[in-house]
């Protein structure tokens, strides 16, 4: 394990906790973190063990989240190295975005047990705990290994594996051309290798793009119900769930807190989040609920904007629309069993579904719309591969970078040994998932494919 790298990982378990903590460790991590942290009160160098409020922005300067920032100078930290923790809002999407910012900037995703390992190596953890940690590292890597094995038959691993094979085949040819220039080998047709690698780049890039969709499958979708009070959010939620979960009354503003329920829509795990109705209220509890709903909008994948079909559209509907207009949403016209009095203004989205929670009408269409809005626009065909974990994404991304460098080097007529360097690095990048490719593997290939021996 490399002790010089800055490593990063979420320190809180995945899921929808209110707050997530992302931890960075390693020399220079504070400088890295400061590049993206914009404090509300500026400072030159953070005081150790002090919380700072501010905003995290990505490399393009776009705000990712409102965060708290704390720097813990080594050795007074978990790993005894300089550590920075970013406290952001919970929810996988935000956590992923924060991770992404730092991974792009050169931090490396921590391996299982790596923070504990560093803590030990730096003498932070007592020697008597050494064995426990060794076991932990062992157990975790075993677990990830068995996970990897269990995925072996899966499409994802197979697909990455076939990319590894084709890269290895190309490398094998190039190495043969380098090391055996006087043998009778296939002609040095670098063009067909280029085509093969370019195809691999395209496919891997599609896979990387599918990461968000894949993440939806593995981590679930957050679906927010939004609308003015008594529009029928709780009824719809119950109808979708098929059970009485939220309290449904005719008194406006009954739902004061966020209620969450899980269900599966077309194979997609969905967390349905009910919110308090959107309206200006003096009730402090209700006001708090509205505030939370607004915050939740940023971390949700899709919003169901509910409009009461039995009444005319009013200002409160418009203020709900304003809240979600910059997010992905579907307009759901409720109470379609009652006489429809609504004439939906053009401002509302093209995607409109009419439902009756009471009569269970329109629910299938709604489910389909939900599925399509989340999945269909990621422009993939049913048979393509979904990337589901950050680890896979990191591996595929760095492999793509190496392969692109390969193509660039090839196009600028660099000699074979430079091209081989790039291919080797691509194989190394995939190695964490598909298994290492050793020199002997490549040599084995050369000797079995080509008749070498002068």
């Amino acid at each position, binding site marked *: *394990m*490399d*002790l*010089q790298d800055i490593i990063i990982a979420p320190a809180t378990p995945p899921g929808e906790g209110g707050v997530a903590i992302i931890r960075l460790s390693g020399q220079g991590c504070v400088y890295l973190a400061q590049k993206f942290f914009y404090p509300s009160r500026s400072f030159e160098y953070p005081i150790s063990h002090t919380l700072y409020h501010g905003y995290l922005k990505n490399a393009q300067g776009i705000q990712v989240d409102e965060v708290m920032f704390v720097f813990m100078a080594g050795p007074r930290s978990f790993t005894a190295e300089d550590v920075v923790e970013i406290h952001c809002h919970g929810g996988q999407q935000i956590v992923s975005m924060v991770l992404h910012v730092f991974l792009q900037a050169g931090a490396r995703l921590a*391996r*299982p*047990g*790596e923070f504990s*390992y560093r803590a*030990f*190596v730096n003498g932070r953890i007592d*020697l008597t705990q*050494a*064995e426990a*940690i*060794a*076991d932990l*590292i*062992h157990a*975790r*890597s075993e677990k990830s290994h068995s996970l990897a094995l269990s995925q072996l038959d899966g499409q994802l691993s197979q697909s990455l594996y076939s990319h590894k094979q084709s890269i290895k085949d190309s490398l094998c040819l190039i*190495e043969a051309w*380098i*090391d*055996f*220039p*006087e043998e*009778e080998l296939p002609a040095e047709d670098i063009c067909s290798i280029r085509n093969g690698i370019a195809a691999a780049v395209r496919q891997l890039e599609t896979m990387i793009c599918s990461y968000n969709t894949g993440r939806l499958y593995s981590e679930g979708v957050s679906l927010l119900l939004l609308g003015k009070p008594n529009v029928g959010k709780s009824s719809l939620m119950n109808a979708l769930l098929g059970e009485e979960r939220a309290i449904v009354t005719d008194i406006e503003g009954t739902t004061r807190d966020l209620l969450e329920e899980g269900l599966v829509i077309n194979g997609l795990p969905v967390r349905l989040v009910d919110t308090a109705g959107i309206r200006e209220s003096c009730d402090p509890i209700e006001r708090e609920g509205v505030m939370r709903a607004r915050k939740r909008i940023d971390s949700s994948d899709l919003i169901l904007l509910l409009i009461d079909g039995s009444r005319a559209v009013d200002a409160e509907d418009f203020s709900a629309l304003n809240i979600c207009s910059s997010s992905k949403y579907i307009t759901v016209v409720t109470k379609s069993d009652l006489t429809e009095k609504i004439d939906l203004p053009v401002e509302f989205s093209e995607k409109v579904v009419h439902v009756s929670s009471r009569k269970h009408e329109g629910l299938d269409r709604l489910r389909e719309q939900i599925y399509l809005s989340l999945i269909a626009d990621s422009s993939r065909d049913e048979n393509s591969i979904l990337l589901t974990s950050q680890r896979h994404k990191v591996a595929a991304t760095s492999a793509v970078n190496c392969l692109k460098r390969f193509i660039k080097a090839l196009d*600028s*007529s*660099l*000699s*074979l*040994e*430079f091209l*081989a*360097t790039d291919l*080797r690095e691509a194989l190394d990048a995939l190695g964490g998932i598909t298994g290492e490719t*050793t*020199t*002997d593997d*490549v*040599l084995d290939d050369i*000797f079995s494919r080509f*008749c*070498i*021996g*002068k």
Partner: protein
Amino acid sequence: MLVGYGKEYQVIVVGAGHAGCEAALAAARMGCSTLLLTMGLDVVAMMSCNPSIGGLAKGHIVHEIDALGGEMGLNADATAIQFRRLNTRKGPAVRASRAQSDRMTYSARMKKIIESEEMLDLKQATVMSVEVGERGVRGVRTREGLFFASQNVVLTTGTFMRGLIHMGLQNFSGGRAGEPASLGLSDCLRDLGFSVGRLKTGTPARLSQRSIDFSKLQEQTGDTHIRGFSFLNNGLDVSQLPCHIANTNERTHEIIRNNLHQSPLYTGAIEGIGPRYCPSIEDKVVRFPERNSHQTFLEPEGRDSSEIYPSGMSTSLPPDVQLQFYRSMVGLEQVEIMRPGYAIEYDFVEPVQIRKSLETKLIDGLFNAGQINGTSGYEEAAAQGLMAGINAARRAMHRSPLVLGRDQAYIGVMIDDLTTQPTREPYRMFTSRSEYRLLLREDNADQRLTPLGRDVGLVDDSRWLKYEAKQVEFSKGLRVIEQRRISSSHKEILDSLELGDLSQGLSLKEVLRRPEIAIEQIVPFVDELASCGAEALEQLEIAVKYEGYIERQYQQVERMRGLEGQSLPASIDYMHITGLSQEVKERLAEVLPETLGQASRIQGVTPAAIAVLSIYLKRWKKEQQN
């Protein structure tokens, strides 16, 4: 029976092949009284197989041997009959030199060099056993009953230990065609506790030159400009002999296929493992049935020899079948065989039993080098011989061994591989074995190794001055091209380099970085460069053109340095470390890696296992302190 020979040597080298000669010369040149023992004084530095030195990766190794102050490069340069530089159209890291050698002259010159080395005695004797005392090796005992005392012994036994020659279904004891095997020594090593294995290699028949119709064959001549192997030689003037290219055909293959039942390879008579990169012709025919022809280079064995070596045609079929299939080839219709080809099996000592100094882990002062370590090739053997000789001498002088890193030399890659990975076949060097290939070039072997050779005492003043002059020219040249800028006012340069109108000025370095511009085009305009030697200019060009890639390799070296710097004590009990899988424990206990870096290269050892190991290393150190 003689108890002793009367004189104790500081270093004894057993075997005078390519490994033994380098070992003995190195030890003697470093000032140690050295004895070189060979079974035959007439076969010093003999080329048992192909009469050539160098090639991909091997040429690199010869340059490294030369840069450290070894003899092989000089000997090959002095006795070559043809030179070819391979991969000249590829990048600098994979260009390699190869020479066809005059086999007998090569041997004679090496013998003369050895005989003229003041501190070195050359004697004919067959070593039967290594004598070991409480403090390690004491000396060697010969078949003639003599005992030679030394606390440092280098074994370079080649294919001679329990050598068994196969020709068809006949087999007989022998170390090389016409020479006896060495019997007894490998039993002695087994008794001392070494694990001894068996390998196989082969060689083609030698054909009579006057029986070949060269008019039917394609000629291959040498290069017009010859660089040579040694950094001491600035271009060579050699009168060169051509090689010729012949091809097998369907008829050849049919003869071979019809006689496979007479091949010891296919009847199971051979137990040793042969190299896959050097298959016999029967292997090629069987494994690649779709090929209807295989190429062979007919290489002359010397100016005064009429023996011709057909490369890639090694065989263990019976001599009459050999004659049949050679005669089925165009140009060889009337060919006469002077010596038949054969396969040979021999004993080797599993090299995970040696340290990176090449000293055995089991017996202090005993070093193994060359084919005894499971390698193949003259260059690989010579490189190990050189390192074993250096380290035996350093041990005699109570100095720490010289160990080359994987980032420093192919020699370092080879020794690390040998001591880390299990032997599956005779080990040969390929450039792909090096993860830092772009750094390990022929052209910079002196920059990498000559200072180390100087430190150990093998680089004399003349080589050192030459080296220093090149370095000074290089750094001076680099300064100039970094600082000197050209702009639109330098019309003459712009036109000559076809740079067009430069809106902004460029440094010469930036100009040189362009792929289409060679350093020779710039030299005429820069007085400081005109005074630099061609070798310094070549370094300059490579350093600038490939800066990005080279820099990335240095970063990779740097990343590994942390692990390489952490040494693992030999006394660690791997079997009792919890958190390691049984397989990893067994591999670690077998290899006993010297550093965490080496441990990480053992197959099956995961990053997690390395983490566990480093935890134990830390605890172990703490316990040692208490």
